[in-house]
């Protein structure tokens, strides 16, 4: 006669089998990895929120336009730090894996709640890393819109992390010198070796990708989805003119309308007749890559002053693009008043290529690439 499988024995047996490998499997290793993850997820959450609120500023706040490379730095840290977190998270989960198979599955109401929270923590953390990685690889096999799902999941994961850290705080505190916990065996070569290996894996992932945003290491960016210097006019492109459905139009004019003293309609020749300025500014993509170019054209503020605007005005920059999430962007006073903010006509010494926004695009300091609107058709001025 067949015996009914006994879940208690099965689960315990799996747990015992899973803990047969001892490498990396002690509490202090878990605490060290947990502390590192706490740091990396905090960096990811904060830089992610910066990216979100730069694109969707709350009514009461405006972003500064300096330092020029701030967004380049925060989003580079977000994405490259996120990639480097992949081995770190996997190592942590390896360390605590046997605990998945414990019997009884729950010992008390508190224990049940604690275990229930592990699901959003682990599933959510894996979700963030996997969808983030797929997104920067332009691979979208999921049914949701990446940015929105990744955004809200960040709160869930970070909230679960805060609770988890509160529960485990005693163990993390035990890591400090002089705070040996009861479990503290001397740091053996095995634990140090394991942690060093994990650190090496994180470092190697960072080293082979960081060049996509930190140009001095561009030569090492063997595995990054972008390479600075590769693209039309030596600058990568995210949306091509063809993809945007925009064709060069010899009759093109720039309209300046809305809350202005006099409406303007400027041809390319009119813009070229105005004082020209050059600025070296990066395209800093939300996807973490960035690359600097030398842009030339007219200052946005010169055009706005010619039209007559008040100092607190906001400007909507609209593209020739018919649709799409990034068809238009808002420019707040700190940015349009900045002397570096240009309506660029040239890139790296040549007129903009169609893929970089010919005839005219916005380029401003400290601003996500998706807001550097290309193929500008209109500037619409409105109240602050």
């Amino acid at each position, binding site marked *: 006669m067949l015996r009914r499988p006994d879940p208690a024995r099965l689960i315990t047996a799996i747990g015992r089998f*899973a803990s047969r*490998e001892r*490498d990396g499997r002690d509490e202090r290793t878990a605490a060290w990895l947990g502390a590192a993850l706490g740091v990396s997820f905090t960096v990811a959450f904060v830089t992610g929120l910066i990216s979100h609120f730069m694109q969707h500023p709350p009514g009461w706040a405006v972003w500064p336009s300096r330092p020029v490379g701030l967004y380049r730095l925060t989003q580079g840290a977000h994405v490259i730090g996120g990639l480097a977190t*992949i*081995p770190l998270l*996997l190592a942590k*989960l*390896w360390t605590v*894996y046997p605990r998945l198979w414990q019997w009884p599955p729950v010992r008390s109401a508190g224990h049940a709640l604690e275990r229930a929270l592990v*699901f*959003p923590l682990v*599933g959510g953390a*894996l*979700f963030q890393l*996997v*969808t983030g*990685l797929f997104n920067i*690889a*332009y*691979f*979208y096999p999921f*049914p*949701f*819109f990446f940015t*929105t*799902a990744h*955004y*809200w*999941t960040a*709160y*869930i994961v*970070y*909230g*679960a992390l*805060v*609770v988890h*850290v*509160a*529960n485990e705080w005693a163990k993390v505190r035990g890591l400090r010198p002089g705070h040996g916990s009861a479990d503290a065996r001397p740091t053996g070569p095995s634990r140090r*070796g394991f942690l060093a*290996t994990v650190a*090496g*894996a*994180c470092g*190697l*992932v960072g080293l*082979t990708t960081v060049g996509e945003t930190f140009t001095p290491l561009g030569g090492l960016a*063997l*595995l*990054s*989805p*972008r*390479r600075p210097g*590769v*693209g*039309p006019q030596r*600058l*990568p492109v*995210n949306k091509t003119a063809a*993809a945007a459905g925009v064709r060069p139009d010899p009759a093109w004019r720039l309209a300046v309308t809305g809350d202005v003293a006099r409406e303007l309609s400027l041809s390319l020749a009119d813009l070229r007749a105005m004082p020209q300025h050059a600025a070296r500014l990066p395209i800093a993509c939300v996807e973490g890559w960035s690359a600097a170019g030398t842009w030339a054209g007219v200052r946005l503020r010169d055009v706005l002053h010619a039209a007559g605007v008040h100092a607190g005005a906001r400007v909507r920059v609209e593209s020739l693009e018919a649709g799409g999430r990034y068809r238009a962007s808002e420019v707040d006073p700190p940015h349009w008043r900045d002397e570096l903010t240009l309506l660029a006509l040239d890139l790296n010494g040549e007129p903009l290529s169609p893929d970089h926004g010919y005839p005219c695009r916005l380029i401003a300091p400290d601003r996500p690439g998706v807001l550097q609107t290309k193929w500008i058709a209109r500037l619409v001025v409105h109240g602050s």
Partner: protein
Amino acid sequence: MRVGRGRLIAYGLGAALIGVGGAGLLRDAAETDPVGWLVWVAGAALVHDLLVVPAVLGVALLTGRLPTSYRRPVRVSLVLAASVSAVALPMVLGLGRRAGDPSRLPQAYGVHLAVVLALIGLAGAVATAFRAIRAGRGRSRRPR
């Protein structure tokens, strides 16, 4: 066990963040597709717990049979190789390439990954040889 004030504050903060995220996810359901989202969150956990870790466990038990002087460098090399491969995989598959935008995924990722893996293998082999030599010396010096 007494629950201190700091911990209660942390619980409150954590619960609030989870609440904000959950509410946002549902409010933006048109974009987040909560059912699809749940499938991906649960799927990620299941794939990890039932496929990835068992596979790693298998490799760990296999490499556990190696003599000690080989075991460590082999394992370190495998961890490094698996990490870079996991991160590079979407690039190597190149499913995100688009005609007309050659600056997107512009590199020969398969070749690049092979180079990185070869370097890891080389470093691992050098470390193994080094350890073997050192272990041999140690043995011959030991008094009988």
